[in-house]
C-alpha cells in the first residue's frame, strides 16, 4: 500500500534516507529517539515535505509532485488538529468541503462520524471548550468523513493519560478494521505501539533501522539498540 524507496531528505545537518513497505490494512508503529526523523517520515508521506531523491508511492501511484490534498491520506497531529474558534460540527465538516456547502447526505455523514467517535452531544461546542481527548476525537471524525485509505498519526495521544490513550487506541483499531485503513503511528510510548501495532519500525539517525513484528520488537532477542532505547 505504501512504499518508500530510498527516499532522501535533508533537515539542517541531518541527512535522512527511508525505505519502508507497508501492506494494506496494516497498523505500523514508528518508534525511535527524539529527532531521529519520525515526524519527517510522516510529513514526506503526507506531502508536507518534498523528498530530494527516491520514490514514494501510495496504492501503486507515484506521489511525486502530488499536492497534500490530492494524496489518499489523512493525518492527525499531536496538537492543533482543530480550529479553536469553530464548533465541533464545522471542524469535521471541513473534511468534506472547505467551503462548507454540504448536501443532506454529506450532512448525515458528518453526524454519523461524530456519533462514531462519541461526540454527537458536542456538535455545537467550540473546540476550545473540549478536553484534549475530545479534541483528538474531532480529528478522528474528520478523518472518517474524508474517508482516505491511509491514516497517519503523529503522536496523537501523547498528551493524554494512560486509560484515555487505551480508549483512543481501541477506537482507532475499530475504525481501522471497519474501513480497512492502513495506519502509520508515531509514538513516544512504546506500550501504545505494543498495544495497537502489528509491526513496529525503529527509526534512528534518519533511517529506518529495523522493522519487526511487535512481538519480536519487545522480545529479549531484539537488536541491541532497540532494547537500549526501550530501557531508556
Amino acid at each position: 500500500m505504501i512504499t518508500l524507496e530510498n527516499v532522501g531528505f535533508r533537515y539542517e545537518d541531518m541527512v535522512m534516507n527511508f525505505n519502508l513497505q507497508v501492506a494494506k490494512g496494516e497498523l505500523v508503529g514508528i518508534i525511535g529517539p527524539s529527532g531521529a526523523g519520525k515526524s519527517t517520515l510522516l510529513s514526506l508521506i503526507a506531502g508536507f515535505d518534498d523528498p530530494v531523491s527516491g520514490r514514494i508511492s501510495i496504492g501503486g501511484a507515484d506521489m511525486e509532485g502530488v499536492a497534500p490534498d490530492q494524496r489518499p491520506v489523512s493525518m492527525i497531529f499531536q496538537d492543533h488538529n482543530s480550529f479553536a474558534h469553530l464548533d465541533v460540527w464545522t471542524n469535521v465538516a471541513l473534511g468534506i468541503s472547505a467551503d462548507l456547502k454540504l448536501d443532506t447526505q454529506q450532512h448525515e455523514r458528518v453526524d454519523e462520524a461524530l456519533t462514531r467517535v462519541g461526540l454527537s452531544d458536542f456538535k455545537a461546542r467550540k473546540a476550545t471548550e473540549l478536553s484534549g481527548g475530545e479534541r483528538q476525537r474531532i480529528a478522528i471524525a474528520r478523518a472518517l468523513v474524508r474517508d482516505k485509505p491511509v491514516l497517519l498519526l503523529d503522536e496523537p495521544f501523547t498528551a493524554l493519560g494512560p486509560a484515555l490513550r487505551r480508549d483512543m487506541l481501541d477506537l482507532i483499531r475499530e475504525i481501522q478494521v471497519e474501513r480497512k485503513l492502513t495506519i502509520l503511528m508515531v509514538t513516544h510510548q512504546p506500550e501504545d505501539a505494543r498495544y495497537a501495532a502489528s509491526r513496529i519500525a525503529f527509526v534512528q539517525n534518519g533511517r529506518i533501522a529495523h522493522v519487526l513484528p511487535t512481538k519480536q520488537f519487545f522480545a529479549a532477542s531484539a537488536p541491541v539498540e532497540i532494547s537500549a532505547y526501550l530501557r531508556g
Partner: protein
Amino acid sequence: MFWKLTLAIALGFILGAVALGFLPLLWLGFGQAFHIDDYLPRVVVFTLKQAFLSTLLSVAIALPVALALARRQFFGREALLRIFSVPLALPAIVAILGIVGVYGNSGPFGGLFSIYGLKGILLAHVFFNMPLAVRLMLTRLESIPAENFRLAAQLNFSAGQVFRFIEWPQLASALMGIASLIFLLCTASFAVVLILGGGPQATTLEVAIYQSLRLDFDPARASILALAQLVTCGLLVLVAGQFAREIQVVPPTLARTRRWDGKSRFSKILDGLLIALGIVIVVPPILSVILSGIGSIRPDGSLFWASATSLLIGLASASLSIALGWVLAETAARQPRTFLKSVITLACLASLIMPPAVLATGWFVTLSPLADMSRYAIFLVIILNALMALPFVWSPLYPAITDSVQRHDRLCSSLGLSGLARFKLIDLPVLRKPLGLAFLMAVIVSLGDLSAITLFGSDSLVTLPALIFRQMGNYRMNDAAGTALVLAAFCFALITIAQRWSQSHDHT
C-alpha cells in the same frame, strides 16, 4: 525601611509633579469654563478625526501587506522587516523632515498634494504606524501553528478559506489592540501636527496647548485645552488601553512555517504589489533623510551645542527615570496590597494619561509667577522627559524585578543577605540587562523629544530636535537635513547598543 523611604520619595515626586500640573488646570480651567468658544470643540473634533482616519488608513493598508509578507519568503525579507521598524525608532521630527523631502514641493513626489494640513498629517501617521501595525500583525500570523497550514493543505483550502479559518481568527483578537494603540499614538502626536498642521484648521489639542502657551501667552485658554486633552486621553487610555495592553511584539521566529496557499500567478503578482506598496510608503522618506543629510552636515557651534545639550538632557532624564522606575518597581513587586500596586503602576504610566503638554501647562501656570521660567527650563525639560520615559522604563524593568524578587527574596533573607551587599551581589548583576535596556530607551525618548523642549525651551536651551525645528522654520532645509542625520545617527547608535545588549547572554 530603606525601600519605604525611597518609595515615599519617588511616589511623592511623581504625584507632586502630576499634582503641580493638574491642580492649577482645574482651578484656572473651571474659572474659564463659561468662556468656551467654538475653538475648543473644533480642536477636539479635529484631534479625534485625524486620529481615527490615521488609524483606519494605517490598519487598512497594513492588513493586506502583513498577509502578503506572511505568505511570502524572498531574498531581503528580513532586511525589509528591519526597515519597517525604522519609522518608529526615528525621532518624529527627523521622519517628518524625510516626508517633507519626498512629498514636499521640491521633492520627487512633490505636487501630488499639499502635505500641510490633514493630508500631510495622515501621510505622516501612516508612515509611522502602518509599519508598526504590519509588524504586530506579522507577530500574530507567524505564531499560527504549522499544523494549521498542513491541515489547510490536506483539506485543500482556498486563499479565502485560509483567511477565513486561519488568518482572520488569529488577527481579529489582536486587531482591536493594534488599532487602539495607533489611535492613542495619533491622539497625542505632537511633532507631526506641529509641523504639518496648517493653522487653526488642522490643529490638535496637544499642539493647540503649545500655541496658547508659547505663542499667544494665554495660560487660561491653555488650561481649558489641557483639561480637554486630559479628559480625552484619560478616557482613551481607560478604554483603548485595555485592548492595547494585550498586544506584544515577539521577535520573528527563524523557522518559518511552510505554506501551500498563494501558488497561483494572480496571488503572486498581488502579493508582490502589496509588498511594493509597503516599500513605497516606508522607504523613500528614510532614504531622503540619509541622502539629503549626508552632504549637509555643517559642524558649527549650534550643532555642537545642541548635541551636547541633547546628550546632557538625555543622560540626566534617563538617570532620573531609572531611579524612579527602579524604586517603584522594587516596591510594586513586593506589594501584596493591590491598591498600592495599582497606584504605583498608574504613577508610572501617568505621562500616557497626562501628555507632556498638559503637565507643562500646569507647571507653567504655577511656576511662572514665582520665578523666571527660563532659568529652570532645563530642569523642567529633564523632569518632563523622565516622566515621558517612565512607561518605557517600566515595561522591561517591572517583570524582571518581579521575577528576581520571587526567585531571590527567600534565599537572600535565609542567608541574611541584605542592603548594599545584596544590591551588589544579587540585584545589580541580575538586573544589568533590563536596567541597561531601560536606560537606553529613556535616552532615546529624550533625544527625540520635541514637545517638552518646545514648551520650555528658549534661545539658550536648544536640543537637536529643537534645532531642526528652528532651521525648518527659517527655511534652512539643508541645515535641518544635516542636523536630522546627526540626530538619527545618535538614535541608531543607541538602538544598536540596546539590541546587542538585550541579545547578549546573561552570566547569571
